[in-house]
């Protein structure tokens, strides 16, 4: 047995009636990692996470978390895991402190531990001044903070966060992620799902999900490296028309708008981006897109997603 492995899943899948929500997930998460699940809404992130914390029995496959076999030993796993649900799930009619104390009691902290830990956490999460406030009166960002505090009340070895920053402003998201890394640096393993690329890129490793299937697993650097020399970034005035133009080229596998730029993914067997960029620029200028520029660019996770959506296999490449 490898005790470095916090999560070990084999062929994990879950169906709801005819719908397959998650299919064929093989996963190994190591001690101390910040491991991300990245995917669009409905990709099966929450279902997968619920199976990994033992809240949902899998339809197939096996999963072992912190040496506990799930779903059989799910109850024994609970006290080792901190789980923050996607939707705020604490009591709106109890104060911040009462929520913390309830969690501390239910996670089995003794009376003196409870007292000490609650005070400690109130200070650590800047909640001390608001201890008597009810969550109903808190903004989204403060609610996330409280939820994270509650998930950490028993110092879990594994922290599982299901889209913790959905709908939170960028500043708050940044400070939230700093907190996540702080927790990981103290030895906990963190599992976090997101659909924000800028968050995903910070994870040590990622599992990208499309329609319930894991399509790539690896560090963000390894995943983007798999597309090296295949991405060209284009600046042009009429992006929509340019995209239509670009898609007609046989060397172009896809053209997508990212912010105010257009990213072109070159087909696998064509020449490298440095060579192709001037030709594409010329083509655009000839087609009447004046002032357009094309340069080879560093692939981003968005490009990886585009490639994966086209059915490219990157798992081997990134492993």
């Amino acid at each position, binding site marked *: 047995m490898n005790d470095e492995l916090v999560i070990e899943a084999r062929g994990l899948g879950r169906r709801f009636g005819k719908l397959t929500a998650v299919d064929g997930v093989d996963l190994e998460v190591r001690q101390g990692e910040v491991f991300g699940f990245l995917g669009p809404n409905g990709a099966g992130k929450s279902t997968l996470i619920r199976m990994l914390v033992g809240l949902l029995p899998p339809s197939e496959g096996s999963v072992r978390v912190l040496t506990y076999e799930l779903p059989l030993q799910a109850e024994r796993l609970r006290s080792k895991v901190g789980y923050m649900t996607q939707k705020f799930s604490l*009591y709106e009619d109890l104060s911040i402190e009462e929520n913390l104390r309830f969690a501390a009691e*239910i996670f089995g902290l003794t009376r003196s531990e409870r007292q000490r830990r609650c005070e400690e956490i109130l200070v650590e999460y800047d909640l001390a001044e608001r201890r008597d406030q009810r969550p109903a009166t808190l903004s989204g960002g403060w609610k996330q903070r409280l939820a994270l505090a509650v998930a950490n009340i028993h110092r879990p070895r594994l922290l599982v966060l299901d889209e913790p920053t959905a709908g939170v402003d960028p500043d708050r998201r940044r400070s939230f992620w700093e907190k996540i890394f702080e927790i990981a640096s103290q030895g906990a393993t963190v599992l976090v799902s997101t659909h924000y690329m800028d968050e995903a890129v910070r994870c040590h490793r990622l599992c990208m999900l499309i329609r319930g299937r894991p399509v790539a697993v690896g560090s963000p650097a390894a995943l983007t490296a798999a597309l090296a020399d295949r991405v060209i970034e284009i600046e042009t005035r009429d992006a929509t028309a340019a995209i239509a133009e670009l898609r007609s080229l046989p060397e172009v596998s896809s053209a997508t708008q990212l912010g105010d730029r257009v990213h072109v993914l070159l087909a696998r067997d064509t020449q490298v981006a440095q060579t192709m960029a001037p030709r594409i620029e010329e083509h655009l200028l000839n087609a009447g897109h004046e002032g357009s520029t094309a340069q080879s660019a560093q692939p981003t996770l968005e490009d990886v997603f585009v490639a994966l959506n086209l059915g490219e296999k990157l798992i081997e490449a990134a492993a």
Partner: protein
Amino acid sequence: MSYLPELPAPLRRISAVVRKELRQLIRDRLTAGFVIGVPIVQLTLFGYAINQDMRHARTAVVDQANSSISRQFVGELVATQTFDIVRYVATKDEARRLLQAGEVSVVVQIPPDFSRDFFRGSGMEVSFIVDATDPTLARAVRASANGLESRLNQIGRHFARTRESLGSEDIPEAAWRFSVLTLYNPELRTPVFVVPALLGVILTTTMILMTALSIVRERERGTFEFLIGTPVHRFELMIGKILPYVAIGFVQIVIVLATGLLLFSVPVRGSLVSLGVASLLFIGANLTLGLVISSVTMNQLQATQLSFFFFLPSVLLSGFMFPFNAMPAPAQWLGQLLPLTHYVRMTRGILLRGTGLGDLLPEAGALIAFLIVTLAMATRFFKKEVG
């Protein structure tokens, strides 16, 4: 800070759930009001609706004799305080119409030959027609009429004896005969009879609904997902959810008994311990049923609907509304399956007849059986899982 010894973890978790539940309950004014308000309001409404017409029944008089004797008789009627004469009408049909319209509850009919019969000393027929929609009123009229009848007969006999002693023998003993006809509802009950049963009805409505809602609410608000992610065992959760409501059930019993005693002098003839044991079984049966309902429903609306699906037969078939033995056999079979049926028998027995638990073992057994079945169902259906 207290210096009590640390409880073992399972008890610690149960106590956490119980205290959380109570705290939420107190904060939720509507529910807290429900707990205290429902028994008082229901009892007062039911009790007074039955009780208030014991006196001052609106009465129409059909005085076909219209003599000084008949007027003296009407005076006697008023003196009983049971009857308030609000109308004098000429014909029986007119009086019947008032009765049907609900303008009066009682019609007293004095026949044309009333005075003649009085002086002859032959039977004087006075008929009372009562709207027994409210059975207590009918019973009160019957009792009052009986009382008046025997009083007048006593006076009559005394009068006759006086005449006898004076030597005039031509006037024999006057015999009053009152007939009381109850309309619309021939079976009669009193508040004393209703309150013990009402105790069960109140507990049924509040207990089932409150446990069911307390869990379904967590599911609806999303807090259930937090709860099931914690180490609290499902049995600990079930117990923690039930215990506060056991306490609340007993608070309600105290309220109902106190209100019943104060307002309607409903006696407590049997032992309070017996009542406590019977109530514990009954509350337990309702709470576990609430757990089952919460396990098979997804939202508060469904839970409420399912609870009402159970309330209606409970109220109708338990012997609260209709005398149990007068119901058709299939209704009785169904009624036997309901905990309220057995609890009503027990409370009536204990409170009114002073029956001991020993004589109520079959009813206690039925409640225990129901409790075991619902507990088995709750154990099977109550899961720590998300949809």
